[in-house]
């Protein structure tokens, strides 16, 4: 899985605003490293950045490119370039059974139902979970649902995987298993988190604050500054400012 420039993510003067409110601005980034982390407080704009890169929203200014494609326009092409693991599996799982859920992505890229089901079966078997195929998705435990979402993404073999707060709400053993799994993935991963621990192992960490790049560089250095700032803010009183 090539992690070079041609599969990389580029933001050129990108910005995003909704109903006159600017959420992201002045983003000039070229993301080609294998493990990238994006940290920021809640409300800093990091989830909107994920949506921008994923093409779920179009930039209000500037450009976004993923593997040379325009994400918000070329939805089909993006399926090979990018996979997304959302925070809440219940917002991601679309089908009543595991087999259907896994097969869906492959049918989206043109495979037949039979081919897609076959590929899904092989993947499940290789994970020691062949018996999951007909299981009802709503009977899976939370950790199992996370896992199913990850499998659905991996089955598509995308070049980059975006992870939105992948460890949020998971118990420690599940976190450890997931972290191990993610670290071993051959494709590029881009992890969004408010928790420095989630991105400590990344090659590059970008700190987003108030919709702008506040810091960008090696994980240790950026996270040290981030943690210090978060601690400083935590020492102050809670923000009482009302947005309305």
């Amino acid at each position, binding site marked *: 899985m090539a992690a070079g420039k041609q599969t990389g993510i580029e933001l050129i003067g990108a910005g995003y605003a909704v109903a006159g409110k600017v959420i992201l601005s002045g983003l000039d980034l070229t993301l080609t490293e294998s493990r990238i982390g994006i940290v920021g407080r809640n409300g800093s704009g990091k989830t909107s950045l994920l*949506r921008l890169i*994923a093409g*779920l929203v179009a930039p209000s200014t500037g450009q976004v490119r993923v593997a040379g494609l325009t994400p918000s326009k070329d*939805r*089909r092409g*993006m*399926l090979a370039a990018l996979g*997304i693991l*959302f925070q*809440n599996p*219940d*917002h*991601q*799982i*679309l*089908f*009543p059974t595991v087999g*259907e859920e896994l097969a*869906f*992505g492959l049918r*989206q*890229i043109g495979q037949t139902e039979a081919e897609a089901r076959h590929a899904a079966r092989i993947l499940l078997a290789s994970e020691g979970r062949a018996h999951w195929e007909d299981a*009802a*998705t*709503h009977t899976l435990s939370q950790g199992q649902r996370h896992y199913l979402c990850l499998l*659905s993404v991996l089955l598509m073999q995308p070049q980059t995987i975006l992870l939105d707060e992948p460890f949020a709400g998971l118990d420690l053993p599940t976190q450890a298993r997931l972290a191990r799994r993610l670290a071993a993935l051959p494709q590029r991963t881009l992890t969004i988190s408010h928790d420095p621990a989630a991105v400590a192992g990344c090659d590059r960490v970008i700190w987003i604050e108030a919709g702008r790049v506040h810091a960008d560089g090696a994980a240790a250095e950026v996270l040290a500054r981030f943690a210090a700032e978060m601690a400083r803010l935590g020492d102050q009183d809670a923000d009482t400012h009302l947005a309305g």
Partner: protein
Amino acid sequence: MLTLTSPVKTWAHRLPAWGKLLALCAYTVLLFALQAPLAMAVAALLPAALIASCGGSFAITSLRMLRPLWPFVAVVVLWHLWLGDSAGGAVVILRMLAAVLAANFVTMTTQLSQMIALIEWLARPLAPILSPRALALAIALVIRFIPVMLARTEAIAQAWRARSPRKPGWRILLPTTLAALDDADRVAEALRARGGAG
């Protein structure tokens, strides 16, 4: 998702869904064409015989599915007794029961997947305005989300009970509906993230 298909495998389970549906339509038309009580009684024997041929527990379930009709039966019985028109009342009741039994027979002997496939086949002429993929996806989404929304409604009801001695009333309608709206937005996004419904 639990369906009304009978887990008891009968001979009728093997028949094609479209055939059963066609036969049901023909039978229902026949029922409404008949007028004489005797003819109606004879016609009503058909679903009764079909159900009886499928065994005891099947028959019990079939009869249980008639329960929601009892208010109508009661009204008709009282009405026609009052008017002294027992024959007319018998015709109405027999026709109602026969039609419902026959229709339920088809439902109980057809797998959900077969019925869905039949619906999708019937919807093919609508392809220009309703893509078959969108229909299949819509059906899957409803089935997928009923248990999720049910669990959330229960959670909302519990949140209510944690703060009020009264039973949850109409007020949980609002968070339940809001949750449906929010879910719709997020699932749309998840769908877009996986290539869309196009």
